[in-house]
């Protein structure tokens, strides 16, 4: 006969477990999820740490039934949704394929590089080192035990110097691999007449504006288009009717008198700014951004009904696709990355709709600066400011790129590197460019280094993923530093933390020998 006490104990345990599951479930789907955090996440991941499903893609049943290998693979796949493209672009030096095969079993036992979390464990801030690495610093030694014997130059080097001295990175060595060092090893510190090619094009006044200042704008624009075609075709043959094209382009230009907007939204300052913007030059009236679905109507009542006062990322991304995509991959807009977990959808009908309503979570909003992991490096008075909107940095009507290049950054960032920018040679060059003494593309703004303009097909665009050029620092060398500096100088400068802090006010205090060693092996 079953003891009544035993039955009560079993019942108590079952009810307790059920209660715990329900409470946990409620917290997870719609409650204070931070109670479930087992430890703070690393750096910018803090912005999405409560969108748990973004990384934890397996459900409860999977977690209970699938093998640890499959669960680890699922987690690694989740990392890839945001980071794989970047790894591929960096021609990852340690892709998982290098760790496959029977013979690599010993290697995998020491460093199972199949899974990102082997090196980048999350929620363990107490053991997480720079670059979000949670393994001890001797991880290279797991495989490269004989390097001191194979390379005379490497004999006796400490394991702490592999990745800390500007020589190697685990993933991205695009500017550090030996043949590249040899090819560019003889470069000068400062390239003569250095100009950032794409910045120069971007910061040259738009030809349509220049043409409008001429007595005969159509002929001026036609001449420009003819010259451009000749340059492209590398022959003196005009294949298009550029006079017609010039007329069409000039017909598109809008002026203050052309504004179509409900009266209460007609702000004179905004209209004046817009009139000289690229948007007005391309024929985009107010509704193009404020009521894009009705951009061709002149019905003010209809526009008023559908007016969005502060258009956001979704509107901008319709035209600025590359910029928007890279923005959501960087720290400023990562909450809007398409793969970040979305709120549950609610069925319009059906018996479950009420229950789903109860547990529906809300979409992530733009992060406030005070919520970010490096708020200590930001100005205290902007902690309430939200990041994640295009117009946080861009003046919405002027589309003034100069503001977004320096002022927007320095209005929030308050670290030594930022403050020292104003004492740097880079800033000096920027001032010269602004005053007209320096040619377009010779000044160096914050954005020139951290959000450089990169090639895309026949054109270029400003990458808004600053992380892509920041960590590790050597990622900047090819797309940024080498526009104006030699490889050796760039490596030395970036490997000098004091020089970085001073915003490159001076010269590198030490010399990294990697290029010397690489050149010596060529002899």
């Amino acid at each position, binding site marked *: 006969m079953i003891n009544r006490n035993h039955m009560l104990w079993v019942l108590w345990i079952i009810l307790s477990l059920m209660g715990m599951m329900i409470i946990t479930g409620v917290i997870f789907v719609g409650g204070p999820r931070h109670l479930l955090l087992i430890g703070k996440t690393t750096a910018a991941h803090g912005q999405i740490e409560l969108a748990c499903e973004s990384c934890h893609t397996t459900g409860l049943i999977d977690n209970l039934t699938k093998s640890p290998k499959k669960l680890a693979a699922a987690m690694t796949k989740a990392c890839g949704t945001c980071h794989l493209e970047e790894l591929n672009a960096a*021609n990852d030096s340690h892709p998982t*394929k290098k760790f*496959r*095969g*029977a*013979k*690599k*079993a*010993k*290697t995998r036992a020491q460093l199972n590089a199949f899974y990102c979390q082997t090196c980048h464990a999350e929620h363990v801030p107490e053991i997480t080192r720079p670059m979000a690495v949670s393994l001890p610093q001797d991880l290279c030694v797991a*495989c*490269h035990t*004989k390097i001191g014997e*194979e390379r005379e130059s490497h004999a006796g080097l400490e394991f702490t110097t592999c990745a800390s001295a500007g020589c190697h990175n685990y993933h991205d060595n695009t500017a550090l*691999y030996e*043949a*590249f060092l040899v090819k560019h090893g003889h470069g000068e510190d400062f390239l003569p007449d250095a100009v950032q090619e794409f910045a120069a094009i971007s910061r040259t006044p738009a030809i349509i504006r220049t043409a409008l200042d001429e007595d005969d704008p159509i002929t001026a624009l036609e001449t420009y288009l003819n010259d451009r075609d000749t340059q492209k075709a590398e022959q003196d043959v005009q294949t298009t009717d550029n006079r017609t094209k010039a007329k069409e382009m000039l017909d598109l230009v809008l002026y203050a008198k052309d504004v179509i907007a409900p009266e209460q939204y007609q702000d004179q300052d905004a209209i004046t700014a817009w009139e000289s913007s690229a948007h007005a030059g391309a024929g985009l009236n107010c509704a193009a951004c404020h009521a894009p679905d009705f951009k061709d109507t002149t019905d003010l009542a209809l526009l008023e009904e559908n007016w969005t006062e502060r258009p956001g990322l979704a509107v901008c991304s319709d035209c600025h696709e590359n910029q928007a995509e890279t923005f959501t991959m960087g720290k400023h807009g990562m909450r809007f990355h398409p793969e970040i977990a979305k709120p549950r959808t609610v069925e319009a009908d059906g018996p479950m709709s009420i229950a789903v309503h109860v547990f529906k979570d809300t979409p992530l909003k733009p992060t406030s600066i005070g919520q970010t992991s490096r708020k200590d490096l930001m100005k205290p008075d902007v902690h309430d400011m939200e990041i994640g909107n295009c117009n946080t940095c861009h003046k919405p009507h002027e589309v003034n790129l100069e503001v977004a290049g320096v002022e927007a950054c320095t209005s929030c960032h308050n670290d030594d590197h930022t403050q020292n920018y104003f004492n740097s040679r880079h800033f000096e060059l920027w001032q010269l460019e602004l005053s007209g003494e320096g040619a377009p593309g010779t000044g160096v703004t914050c954005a020139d280094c951290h959000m450089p303009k990169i090639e895309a097909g026949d054109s270029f665009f400003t990458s808004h993923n600053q992380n892509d050029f920041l960590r590790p620092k050597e990622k900047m060398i090819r797309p940024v530093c080498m526009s104006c500096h030699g490889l050796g100088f760039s490596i030395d400068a970036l490997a000098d933390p004091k020089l970085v802090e001073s915003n490159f006010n001076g010269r590198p205090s030490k010399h990294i020998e990697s290029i010397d060693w690489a050149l010596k*092996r*060529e002899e």
Partner: protein
Amino acid sequence: MSKIINMLVGGAMLAAIPVSTTSADGIDPADVTDMLHAVMDSDRTIYTKMIVGRLVAEHKLIKATENFEDDISAPLPAQMFRMGAEAVADRTDLFEYSLQSLWPINKPNAENQTELEKEGLKFVAENIGENFYGEEVIDDLKYFTAVYADVAVAEVCATCHNEHKDSPRTDFKVGDVMGGVVIRIPLEG
């Protein structure tokens, strides 16, 4: 009459298949590795001769370099072979293969060579025209391992290896065994 001969030949071939290519448990692993190697070796030889030998060395239309991505050039034959092996490993773990050598340019590639692999590489270098077959246990799993000689089929193979700064041997000539293709099939698990 010719029909009868054809039928007899065909019948003989069909009858011969089970004898030559299967064992009690299925196809002989050596036949499988021979077949796999026939495909690999043919593709590799054609790439070396038709792309590198013809377009690079003879007509000088393109270059083939180690850092082919940055150089916008063609991959070297050994790199093309390795990329193929890696792509196969992405798709299956029923077999794996790699190019190995006793005189490796890429040292880390040779660091994990097993004793059987080394024995095989030595054997195919010393016994021209012969393949090497054996069984080995790696990480508690039993494998059938075959080694096939990798011969310098074109002048460029020998010169490139001889001139490479990381090459431990510099006297290769066309026809020499430079290494071997190692194919490994897990026999259990």
